[in-house]
């Protein structure tokens, strides 16, 4: 186990590149990888090489044996790692990366040697070249892995992997296309030789480009440097590393056999044509291209583990989908293509997530030599075995056929079952791995399921491209509108923007987001800050979001030295239905001298439906002259009486035609009393007079009539069943209507609302 407190095993590297140098080197790394892809496709790793071996007359077992050199040679890493570190990762990599190209040159002589060496001689010759190549490659890669860990800054590792993947995929596509073009026009050895020669040229460029990458300096051995065995032991005793290795091995065993024989499954079982099977490759590449950047960014932002697990979950679906897909139908190809795109997407998620996890969280930088060599060797062995295993399983299950629940069983079914089971096991193993993730796996998945992730991603990209304040504000608004947790980081960033208007907009955008602890915390920070103009909006925003986490801050805001903060805090707490402040506000309301604060307290008490506040609110209403303020106070009273919506509807109707809406309200009350058999003749006459007067648009007459109605209704009688609040309002309404008539529009409304909400019980 390597803890962070352990002393680094290597001397502090003075030659450690700065981040600037690292960033500058990344373009060369990508160029080197892209050109190396062409080399690989044209020489040992592409289908032209297998075709060449076949053209030379080699049998399939011979071809399999030769190809297995590549993974098995990885074992050498275990023995040469300390030497590689001593000589310098970069130097070793470039030397042996160059050497393998020189060895590859040997393939160019095949046409001339074919006649003189004979078949057996050819096998030995090609095997020797392959062995030399595999060995050089293994040594170079032993140096490469620790070097990669060093020269890519962790902050951009995901993005780097994604960009690298896009370029290598595109160059791979171009290389495959070119190879097909050349081989189509000539089927003799010269075409293969031409491709190999071109591949070597690209390999040369790849090696040259690698010389421009910084870092990879020699590591001086110190007395603290452990021996090779000691290093291996340390790696093997690191539970996290071993868990990762086990997961990576299992996933290799799960996927490599399945993917190797998938083309055969598609051709033999699904009955796709050879051309269609090749087309599926394009589907995979499309999956790579469309998803790589998103996975890379997600890995850098949310951590490697959720991205890796997302890839594994998708991989878990693949064997099931292949198993149940319709066979020999018109839609089979389209379904297979859709699955191929998913393969591409899952490959990217797994590749970027697992790769980043290895470099950032699993391998301690000061132990990279031992860990990486052990990793490389192990994966090599597992890779070799997995290649062979697929063939064995298929051979063993050759005669398998039948049906379960209407689904066909065939020789490929065991491969799918193995793929499913081993991927599931990998999920279990890697699910508990220690990593750098900021978010849990479920949380990560939830981010894409809440709000509008597409709008969020679009807004995020455009936010970074915004060139001026106006566009930034516009994008900030869009970020909030997406209501997606994906946009949280950007919104937090906008809160720190130096532009006042952007920060203001950010608070508003955050107010429109679903509650999120980080956003609430950020709002609380703004609220407790020094910028008064933003503090009050932050208070409003907290009330708008109604996250209970912000209540404490808002309660503290009630005692702020700024009146506006106190007012906004009271309103926000009222909107959040925080009953704990009701008594406090009830005490403050009569004592408060400031009109604005009185309004805010009254509004909050109304929101809290505090019946005890009815008296003080009516007093305040009586003493207030501003029509807007009176209307807001009337609403507070209406809320206490109940059915806020009815009050608002009445207000809207009354603004258009007070007489008509008042007449309708009075008539409705009369009908209710009639139905409940509680309508006295006196009341009936008063109601009719009021309704008629209002209907004739005689508002003053109607108001006087309404005052009489309220006085009658508020009188205690045997039939009276109205609540205390309603009766209080009726009494007050009767008095004020008599005093002010229709001049106090909101009193008319409140009186009508009292009639509307009065509970009439049928006798």
């Amino acid at each position: 186990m390597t803890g962070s407190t352990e002393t680094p095993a290597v001397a502090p590297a003075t030659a450690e590149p700065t981040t600037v140098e690292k960033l500058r080197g990344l373009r060369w790394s990508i160029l080197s990888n892209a050109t190396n892809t062409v080399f690989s496709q044209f020489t040992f790793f592409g289908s032209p090489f297998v075709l060449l071996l076949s053209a030379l007359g080699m049998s399939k077992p011979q071809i399999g044996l030769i190809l297995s050199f590549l993974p098995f040679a990885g074992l050498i890493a275990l023995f040469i790692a300390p030497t590689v570190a001593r000589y310098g990762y970069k130097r070793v990599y470039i030397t042996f990366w160059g050497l393998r190209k020189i060895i590859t040159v040997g393939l160019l002589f095949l046409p001339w040697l074919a006649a003189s060496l004979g078949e057996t001689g050819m096998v030995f010759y090609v095997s020797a070249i392959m062995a030399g190549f595999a060995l050089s490659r293994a040594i170079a890669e032993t140096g490469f892995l620790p070097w990669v860990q060093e020269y890519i800054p962790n902050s951009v590792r995901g993005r780097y992997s994604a960009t690298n993947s896009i370029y290598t995929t595109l160059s791979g596509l171009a290389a495959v296309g070119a190879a097909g073009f050349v081989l189509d026009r000539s089927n003799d050895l010269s075409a293969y030789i031409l491709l190999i020669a071109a591949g070597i040229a690209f390999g040369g460029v790849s090696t040259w480009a690698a010389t421009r990458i910084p870092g990879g300096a020699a590591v001086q051995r110190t007395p603290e440097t452990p021996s090779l065995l000691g290093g291996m032991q340390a790696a093997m005793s690191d539970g996290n590393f071993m868990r990762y290795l086990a997961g990576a091995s299992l996933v290799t065993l799960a996927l490599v056999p399945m993917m190797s024989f998938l083309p055969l499954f598609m051709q033999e079982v699904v009955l796709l044509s050879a051309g269609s099977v090749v087309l599926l490759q394009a589907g995979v590449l499309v999956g790579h291209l469309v998803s790589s950047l998103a996975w890379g960014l997600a890995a850098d932002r949310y951590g490697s583990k959720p991205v890796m697990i997302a890839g594994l979950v998708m991989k878990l679906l693949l064997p099931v989908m292949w198993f149940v897909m319709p066979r020999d139908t018109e839609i089979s190809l389209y379904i297979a293509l859709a699955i191929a795109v998913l393969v591409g997407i899952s490959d990217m998620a797994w590749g970027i997530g697992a790769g980043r996890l290895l470099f950032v969280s699993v391998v301690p930088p000061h132990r990279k030599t031992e860990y990486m060599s052990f990793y490389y060797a192990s994966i090599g062995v597992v890779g070799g075995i997995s290649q062979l295993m697929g063939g064995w399983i298929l051979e063993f299950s050759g005669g398998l056929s039948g049906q379960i629940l209407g689904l066909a069983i065939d020789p490929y079914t065991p491969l799918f079952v193995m793929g499913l089971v081993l991927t599931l096991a990998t999920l279990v193993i890697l699910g508990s791995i220690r990593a750098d993730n900021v978010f849990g796996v479920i949380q990560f998945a939830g981010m894409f399921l809440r709000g509008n992730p597409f709008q969020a991603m679009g807004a995020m990209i455009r936010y970074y491209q915004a060139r001026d304040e106006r566009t930034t504000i516009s994008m900030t608004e869009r970020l909030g509108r997406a209501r997606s947790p994906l946009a949280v980081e950007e919104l937090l960033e906008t809160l720190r923007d130096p532009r006042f208007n952007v920060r203001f907009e950010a608070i508003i955008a955050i107010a429109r987001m679903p509650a999120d602890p980080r956003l609430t915390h950020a709002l609380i920070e703004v609220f407790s800050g020094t910028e008064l103009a933003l503090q009050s909006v932050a208070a409003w925003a907290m009330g708008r979001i109604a996250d209970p986490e912000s209540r404490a801050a808002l309660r503290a805001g009630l005692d702020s030295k700024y009146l506006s903060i106190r007012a906004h805090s009271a309103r926000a707490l009222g909107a959040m239905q925080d009953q704990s402040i009701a008594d406090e506000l009830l005490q403050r309301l009569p004592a408060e001298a400031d009109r604005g604060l009185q309004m805010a307290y009254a509004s909050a008490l109304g929101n809290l439906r505090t019946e005890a506040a009815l008296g003080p609110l009516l007093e305040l209403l009586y003493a207030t002259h501003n029509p807007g303020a009176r209307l807001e106070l009337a609403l507070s009273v209406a809320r206490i009486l109940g059915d806020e919506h009815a009050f608002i509807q009445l207000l809207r109707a009354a603004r258009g035609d007070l007489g008509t809406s008042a007449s309708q309200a009075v008539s409705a009350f009369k009908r209710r009393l009639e139905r409940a058999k509680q309508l006295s003749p006196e009341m009936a006459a008063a109601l009719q007079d009021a309704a008629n007067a209002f209907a004739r648009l005689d508002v003053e007459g109607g108001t006087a009539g309404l005052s009489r109605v309220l006085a009658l209704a508020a009188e205690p009688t045997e039939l009276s069943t109205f609540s205390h609040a309603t009766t209080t309002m009726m009494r007050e309404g009767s008095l004020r209507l008599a005093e002010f008539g229709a001049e106090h529009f909101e009193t008319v409304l409140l009186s009508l609302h009292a009639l509307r909400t009065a509970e009439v019980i049928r006798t």
Partner: protein
Amino acid sequence: MSTELTTVEKLSGLRWSISSNVANTVFVQYTFFGSIFVLFLSALGLSRSAMGLVLSFLPFFGLTALFVAPWVARIGYKRAYIIFFAARTVVALCLVFTPWVMNAYGSEATILYVGVVIALFAMVRSVGVTASFPWVQEYVPNSVRGKYTAINNIFTTGVGFLAVSGGSFMLARTTGLAGFMWLIGIGVVFGTISVGLAFKIPGGAPMPPHVEGEEDKSRRDLMTALRDRDFVFYLASVALIIIATVPIGSFLPLFLREEIGLSQSAVVWLQSGTLIGTLLSGYLWGWAADRYGSIPVSLYGMGMRALLPLIWMLMPRDGDTISFGIALFAALLQGVADMGWGIGSGRLLYVRIVPPEKRNDYMAVYYAWIGIIGGISQLSGGFLLDLFENLRFQIWIFHVDPFLPIFLMGLFLPFISFTLLRGVREEKSIGMGEFAGVFLRGNPFLAMSSMIRFHLAKDEHSTVLMTERLARAKSPLTVDELLEALEDPRFNVRFEAIISISRMMPEPRLIQALEKLLVGSELALTVVAAWALGRLGDMQAAPALHHALNSEYRSIRAHAARALGALGALGDATVANDLLARLHTEPDKGLQMAYASALGNLGNTEATNTVLHLLATIGNEGARLELALTLARLVGDEHHFIGLLRTVRSDPATATAQAISSYRRKLGRRVRRGSDQLRLADRCAEAMARNELVRGAHLLTELIRNRSERQFSEHGNLILSECARQLENEAELDDVNHHMEYLILALHTLQVDQRMRS
């Protein structure tokens, strides 16, 4: 007591009116107005010309209105309507005796009998309709007239569809005249129900007797109506539309069957397309007419109607699926267009054209006029078809056939009608372009759903959410609702409304509403209104904001200044001098910040020294950063400064080193290789990259001092000199993280100002 109806009474009567109209629809479909009646006449053995003649009784009897109108007014519209509609139902009942007449007196006598019944029916009906027009004008409140017409249309169309289907079902299962008699009988029952329901509609009282010394309201005054320019224009416009559309409407089924080659059943199916168009668009047209005025709705309906002949003339004539599809689309469009024209022109007539006090004369003239024109147009269609019977040839893809003249009429007459109607004045109406813009800007579907949900919102929270949605649509359709939200008694709704308005496209009414808030008494909303005016970015708001700079509240002054800055960024810098003067004298830090920020937005380089001084004296980190941004704006390329700030925040060493390296590359193009400046830049970049920020700051100070001042602007030099001074102080204190803004500002100025001068 006044006999004038109250709105409450009017509103309570509308449901009875709609019910009566619905029942009447069944009556008319089964008796004199539907295709069933034409089939009935055909079954009696009437020739087509005889049929045309008896059917023209219906419109021509409209002329009666001119003579009976004063009497109708005297006895009361409601009474006249009910009496004569009841009478017409009784007359219609006479048709039930047709088989008996046929058996007793033979076919010629039967035809005569039916002709007399129709004439009687047309006469009695015309008196009833003469009364109905002024009565409808009275009992439908203008504020909901469009909506009423739309709802009425939806119900009558739906019931009409059911009635026709039922009639078709009945006729398919009976032989001879029996089926017709059953249907006429059912129609009469519904006619009676319709009259019964009309009893419940208020209004239509008799005109009060003439009192000596007062104006005699019952006196005929048709000349006033005929001298009314708007009324005459309206009548001419309506007449042209009738002439343009009635012949097409009558003969379109023949055209589709004979020329296009559609089957009989396909032609019948097309009717459902028209009905669907009617049902889909009815409410929308009604709502639009009430909100935006009748004229744009009429004109758009008319415009769509004018498009239809083009579609019919150019559609493929193979009778295949494509032809049917196009015909169905045209039928749908016809339903939509008819609804637009019907609702718009009807509302215009009642609300604007006919003065309520003169409705008796106006409506009589109107009814007589459309009766004459309707009758003539019925006859003219057949006449034109006969006249051009032999017209048939083809030019390229255009087919010329006997229907071409009536299509050309349908195409061109609406344009003349259009011109006439545009001459009619209507208050509270918007222009056609504006009306189209209302539906084409933003997201009208989101707007409409939000408007509905806004009115249905039950509590504050949902009203706030709907207010937000209203603005999200960015559609002018929602302007009225947003203005309503601004007047909501709930503070949070008003607050949300201001924010939502700030996200809308600038609209004069919204700007005015915000300006009103700006001078209001609610401080909490006033400041947000000032911000919102800046956010809207419309220069119309500049004078109000400029005025707000003198507000007694500092927060309003600050927001107004910032808003002016935001507006100034769009091209106007008229307030710069005022702000600069205020900045020099203002003691309040918050206001200083606001003025400085606004001046930065306005690109006022004269403020450089003052802002640098402010930056040097202010302690708050956020404020310092904002002032640095203000200075960066004066240098130019704000985006560069923001980008630099973001990268510096995440990795100061790398970001600053990269910025120096970038400056070094530009410098390399100006100075000789190996110069001191280049060496300094290399060392500075190296120090920064190694995260030795203090050493880097020292070297940067040296680099700035060694610069060639000619390569920078005057204010750029001022900024760089101040940055160098401050960085040196910081470096001496061994801490550059404390005042990172000088480092960023210096790097920004080095890169950007130099770039601008090169």
